[in-house]
């Protein structure tokens, strides 16, 4: 057991801190979504120029070959600096690594650099109205027409679609094959009339997500990732990357939120109430436990080459804790916290999505029960 960083890890962290000191991200504009996106795009360009856009990518593609631990440090430091997520987060975290794993040389050559530089933004077209947790149920279909595929269907929960040049699209290319087997994974150009993006206004009043209506969009056969019919396996690569490293970013954000709540409780005197002090302490335990679980999960992957149970548990614990913490903030700060435009009001509402997006808590519990504890499926 050694919970100190190695010399290389400290060197990596200090270099990053030095860069962050010289390149502060500044304040993200609130209330204007387009301006906020542009701000995050500028931030990614700045990261790109400093060589920090995707530390976990291999050097040959512009990354730093960062270890899992360095990647965790990167996200922790970004969280602590209150940096925004880069505009092309989905490209950097999901599309890039999936293309590296499955792409042809031409595809890697074509797509990776513009992902890194934020020149081309990516979105993820997996979920559909009838295929949420059950990805293998996608209905969006593609039929072959000469050298192209012609795609028709609907996608939902597509964040950043309105800003995206490309979409990671899971479609059904063989309607007769068994559920998982008839799928393919396309890299679809969003800039065509056949693709319509409609913002999906969420309970916060913002529209982070969109619906995609696809009516005979064309995807050239060079833009199939993996082979025809490999869509399920390619999509699993994307999903396995979904929770990597990012958890550390979310954990540090959670800790900043807790620190803010403690400050609020000190300012209004509620911290003197033992019930409030106890509830704040419980949030402290959950937040630090999350960090320990995340680090322990990484160590176990590094030692044994495969993940232990921790990986499935961190997203679950984070999302529940974020909901509990924002609810506690309302109770500590009183009805004023529920005023439109208040940060706590926004965070409270936004947190309801946490236990749904990226795998509902119910699905995560199923995964833990079946794959970690080995309980029988029915």
């Amino acid at each position, binding site marked *: 057991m050694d919970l100190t960083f190695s010399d290389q890890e400290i060197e990596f962290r200090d270099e990053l801190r030095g860069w962050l000191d010289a390149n502060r991200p500044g304040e993200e504009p609130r209330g204007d979504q387009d301006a906020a996106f542009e701000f995050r795009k500028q931030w990614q360009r700045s990261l790109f120029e400093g060589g920090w856009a995707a530390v976990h990518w291999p050097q040959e593609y512009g990354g730093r070959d960062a270890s899992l631990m360095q990647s965790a440090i990167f996200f922790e430091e970004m969280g602590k600096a209150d940096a925004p997520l880069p505009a092309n987060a989905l490209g950097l975290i999901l599309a890039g690594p999936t293309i590296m794993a499955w792409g042809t040389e031409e595809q890697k050559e074509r797509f990776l650099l513009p992902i890194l530089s934020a020149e081309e933004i990516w979105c993820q077209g997996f979920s559909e109205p009838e295929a949420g947790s059950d990805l293998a149920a996608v209905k969006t279909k593609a039929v072959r027409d000469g050298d192209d595929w012609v795609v028709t269907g609907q996608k939902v929960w597509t964040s950043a679609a309105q800003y995206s040049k490309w979409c990671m699209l899971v479609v059904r290319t063989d309607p007769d094959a068994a559920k998982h087997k008839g799928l393919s994974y396309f890299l679809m150009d969003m800039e065509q009339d056949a693709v319509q993006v409609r913002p999906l206004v969420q309970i916060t009043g913002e529209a982070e997500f969109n619906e995609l209506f696809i009516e005979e969009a064309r995807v050239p056969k060079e833009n199939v990732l993996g082979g025809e019919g490999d869509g399920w396996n390619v999509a699993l690569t994307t999903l396995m990357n979904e929770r990597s490293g990012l958890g550390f970013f979310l954990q540090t954000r959670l800790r900043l939120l807790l620190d803010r709540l403690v400050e609020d*409780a000190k300012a209004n005197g509620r911290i003197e109430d033992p019930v409030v002090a106890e509830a704040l302490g419980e949030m402290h335990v959950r937040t630090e*436990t999350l960090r320990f679980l995340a680090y322990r999960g990484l160590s176990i992957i590094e030692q044994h080459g495969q993940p232990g*149970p921790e990986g499935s*548990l961190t997203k679950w*614990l984070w999302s529940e804790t974020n909901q509990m913490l924002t609810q506690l903030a309302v109770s500590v700060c009183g009805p004023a916290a529920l005023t439109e435009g208040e940060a706590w009001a926004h965070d409270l509402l936004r947190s309801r999505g946490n236990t749904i997006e990226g795998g509902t808590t119910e699905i*995560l*519990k199923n995964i833990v029960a079946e794959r970690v*504890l080995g*309980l029988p499926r029915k």
Partner: protein
Amino acid sequence: MRFDFTEDQHEIKRTAKDLLASRSTLEKVREAAEAGEYDAALWKELGELGWPGVAIDEAHGGGGLGYVELAGLLEESGYALLNGPFLATALCAAAISEAGSDGQKDEWLGRLASGEATGAFGLVGQVVPDGASADVVVVADRESGEARLLTGQGSLEGLDSIDPTRRYGIVEGGLPDGEPMPGDVAAAIDLGCVLTSAELVGVCGRALDMTVEYVKDRKQFGRPVGSFQAVQHRCAQMLLSTEGARASTYFAAWAADADRDRLPEAASLAKSAASKAGIEVTASAIQAHGGIGFTWEADVHWFYKRAQLDAAFLGSSAEHNRRLTALVSP
């Protein structure tokens, strides 16, 4: 960073698990609980193996390893519900190491390390594991930061608690008469929290394993009850609580060895997480076992009872939560 045991530490833990699986079975735990006596032969053997002294320094006859190794052993003794005064003796040794005078260390640490003497440790006004039967007892007062060392069996009143797998004593009133202790009493209490948390992690681990085994096997409506989602989600929650308590406890054990500045926070994080997990996981184990889990015949209740006593010992989850808030917001 390596947030996991080294190979040597894993080996110590594995060996302990194997030994206890054969020498401290639940049948033995039950016999000892119902007879009101510990297994003296097993205690002698553990003493020869150096368990009670694993974290005591070599100059005082200990193994000179650390609290990480001791926590690993305590996790296994919790898993087995070991019928012997291992936790209490380890707590007492840690308290004397931190808070004792040179003379107290010379007099007691070697005998505790070998298992020749047994010890206990607790707070004023509270229940003390193995307090009535120990040869030496340390009683501490968190408020004043003082502690007293009491010698001779029977220096504390005995107490029949709901957990008959362990002998308990009680400290009534204020600080009892005894030898004053000049050292760091707060650190002694924090170490006690870490070590008790390690036992609780083992208790949770066993309650979870027993439950998973049971729900895979038990059939109702023609299928294993473990295939029902309601039962699965309960078991998943048990795992989350157990792993959270485990990660916090390992962090605290490491801090005890390597980063004392963080020990107060780490000890409270661990004790809060482990106390809450202990109560919830063992209660869930009873529920998932159905009617059989409520009978004296089934063994799950021993774990529930131990968890209740350990959770209350040295501060409940709620008390440590308040302490954490006070630590970040003085």
